[in-house]
């Protein structure tokens, strides 16, 4: 059996820089960054007081993921020009979160202050729960919402791989990821992990890096078989690789073994030995960035020295479940526009992170194939190889 070749017909994004992908890409090319002090709430005592947040009024309850994802999906569908036949939806998303109003009610249901009163909670939570919009809480709500949007009759799946979700979800039809984590609970959660930048900077691979900055947004792709009618393909999905570190929950293997296996599998799947661009996971954390470079060197060998490397997280922060998808869009931009978008915030590359980094502004580059990495908390790794579409 010969697998059908899969191409990208359209893309869309809502980022903290702009509400469409073309506008986002131009801002990224100019070296813009959306990282800014948190103003949506009083973050003065939080371990990190900056984020790359989207200005979005959900206007339909508490879930900010839905308007982001829907706008990105509409943009991608419009660009793709495909007829609406049998469509599948594959979305990377983690749990939604209720608003702080709801969280406070939850606390009160448990007796507010002091000891958690489980019995009181059990009695009061029933009334409390009736007021929660189920779609706010469920990770599956986004995929279900988008399935209705595009009249999907095929499979509708939610992939929960944290930071690798978006990349692993890219398979066929409408695929992508969304994250809306610039809110107090997630800043608190990541703060507990000690993963956030105390300095308040997102500067992947830089000597100054001390953690990531939470970002948010949605990035969507419309994928079809190559023989399906639609807008001209922007590139093809040439290879996919996945692996588990099986090492630690919040630290990569120092020798990059798990990540290297995902990269090598994707390259082998694509039957490529060289890529001109690597859109790195590049989180700006002390451990992840050098481990990723080690993995790239192991997997690509001498070819790594030829690849221009950048990470979009310097500009838009870490979208968690949407991170892989926005990385894929940056790689597609490299293939379509023959330029590599820069790593915002990177000024002085750290020695263990040495590579052909793109800093400041986008650089012109003849990109035929690009590698996208997404490496999740928990050690779940996903890599994609995208390639210029040169016909069947």
């Amino acid at each position, binding site marked *: 059996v010969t697998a059908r070749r899969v191409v990208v017909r359209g893309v869309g994004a809502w980022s903290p820089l702009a509400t469409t992908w073309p506008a986002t890409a131009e801002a990224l090319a100019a070296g813009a960054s959306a990282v800014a002090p948190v103003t949506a709430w009083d973050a003065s005592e939080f371990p990190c007081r900056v984020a790359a947040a989207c200005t979005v009024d959900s206007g339909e309850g508490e879930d900010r993921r839905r308007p982001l994802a829907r706008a990105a999906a509409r943009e991608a569908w419009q660009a793709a020009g495909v007829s609406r036949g049998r469509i599948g939806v594959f979305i990377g998303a983690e749990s939604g979160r209720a608003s702080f109003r709801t*969280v406070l009610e939850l606390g009160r249901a448990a007796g507010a202050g002091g000891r958690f009163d489980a019995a009181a909670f059990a009695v009061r939570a029933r009334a409390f729960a*009736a007021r929660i919009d189920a779609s706010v809480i469920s990770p599956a709500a986004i995929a279900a919402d988008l399935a209705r949007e595009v009249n999907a009759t095929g499979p509708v799946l939610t*992939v929960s791989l944290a930071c690798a979700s978006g990349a692993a979800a890219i398979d066929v039809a409408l695929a992508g990821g969304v994250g809306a984590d610039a809110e*107090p609970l997630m800043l608190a959660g990541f703060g507990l992990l000690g993963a956030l930048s105390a300095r308040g900077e997102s500067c992947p691979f830089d000597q100054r890096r001390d953690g990531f900055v939470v970002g948010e947004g949605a990035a969507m792709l419309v994928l079809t078989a190559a023989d399906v009618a639609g807008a001209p393909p922007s590139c093809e999905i040439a290879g996919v690789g996945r692996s588990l570190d099986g090492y630690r929950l919040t630290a990569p293997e120092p020798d990059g073994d798990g990540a290297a296996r995902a990269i090598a599998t994707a390259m082998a799947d694509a039957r490529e030995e060289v890529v001109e661009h690597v859109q790195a996971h590049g989180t700006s954390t002390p451990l992840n960035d050098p481990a990723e470079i080690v993995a790239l060197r192991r997997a690509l060998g001498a070819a790594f020295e030829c690849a221009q490397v950048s990470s979009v997280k310097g500009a838009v922060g870490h979208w968690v479940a949407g991170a892989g998808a926005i990385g894929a869009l940056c790689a597609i931009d490299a293939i379509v526009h023959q330029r590599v978008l820069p790593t915002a915030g990177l000024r002085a590359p750290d020695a263990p992170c040495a590579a052909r980094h793109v800093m400041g502004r986008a650089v012109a580059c003849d990109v035929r194939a690009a590698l996208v990495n997404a490496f999740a908390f928990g050690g779940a790794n996903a890599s994609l190889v995208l390639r210029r579409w040169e016909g069947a």
Partner: protein
Amino acid sequence: VRVPVIAAAGVSPGGRGARGVAAIAPSTATPLASTHPGVPARAITDELLGDTVPVRARKTMARGALLAATAMADLVRALGPGRAAGAGCFLGVGASAGAMPDLHAMLGAAIVDGAWSIARFGGPGLAACNPLLAFQLMNNFTMCHAAIQEGVSGPSGAYFSRGAGTVAALRAAVDSVGDGDCAIAIAGGADSALHPVTWAEMVRDGRGECVPGEGAGLIAIGDGNAIAVITVIATAPAIDRALIDRAVADRSEIVIAAPAAVRALVAERGVAIHDAGAAIGEALAATPALAWLTGLERIAAGAARVAILTVDGDGALGVVALEAP
């Protein structure tokens, strides 16, 4: 695609392994005074879990992850030395939920003079919380914790599941073996409906008559000595009579975890039914996988061709078939 099942493991209120699921008795549903006053529930005891997962690791795990890690340890042992290292891992996982006392402590520490301060939530609130709470919050950690504990390092997928996603995980595992991505893949699901918020949501959804349950079921498929052969027949977003008819046709026995209306449809066909759902209760992402274990028990008992029908709380249908090797 038909793939050999080479090992299975699970943990349920009835015990460890496939026989544990079969051994669940109605008497195991007992009111959990601490979280579900007056509500019969099927909980797994600490005694049953034992010390399979080290105490230090347990503190970082939400309930679903602990159950998955326990079952994974049993499965890896059943596979034999070195066989799980490169295995793929594809699990249906529920919405991970942190320990309520920790969240409550965070909120409590953020109250000043009777008023809640969001700024203090990010300072003293964090300080009041078990720092390991963050390890409990991401859904994929249910899979990753288990993989890390046992050194499983092949291709992976964590699919959000209230039931049907677990069947999707099995299909991904079958595809992964079929595509040659890995020689062995582990598939299944782990979840608990005993978290107070989960139960409150089920009541909200009009499912308060359910018996909340929990568990983890895992199977290993691929290269090795087959104990059965598995096929994912289909999934559907809603109950599909034609699909059920197709699943039931030519089967010697049916294992079912589905509403009474679906049981009635199957009963019309006059085939032997094993109601795994009545034993398991509502274990969400774990339910289909525990039902597969029941199917394996039927194969071990001599059944030739068993179909496993599961319908989750959203009405999504999953149909899996097992045959004797």
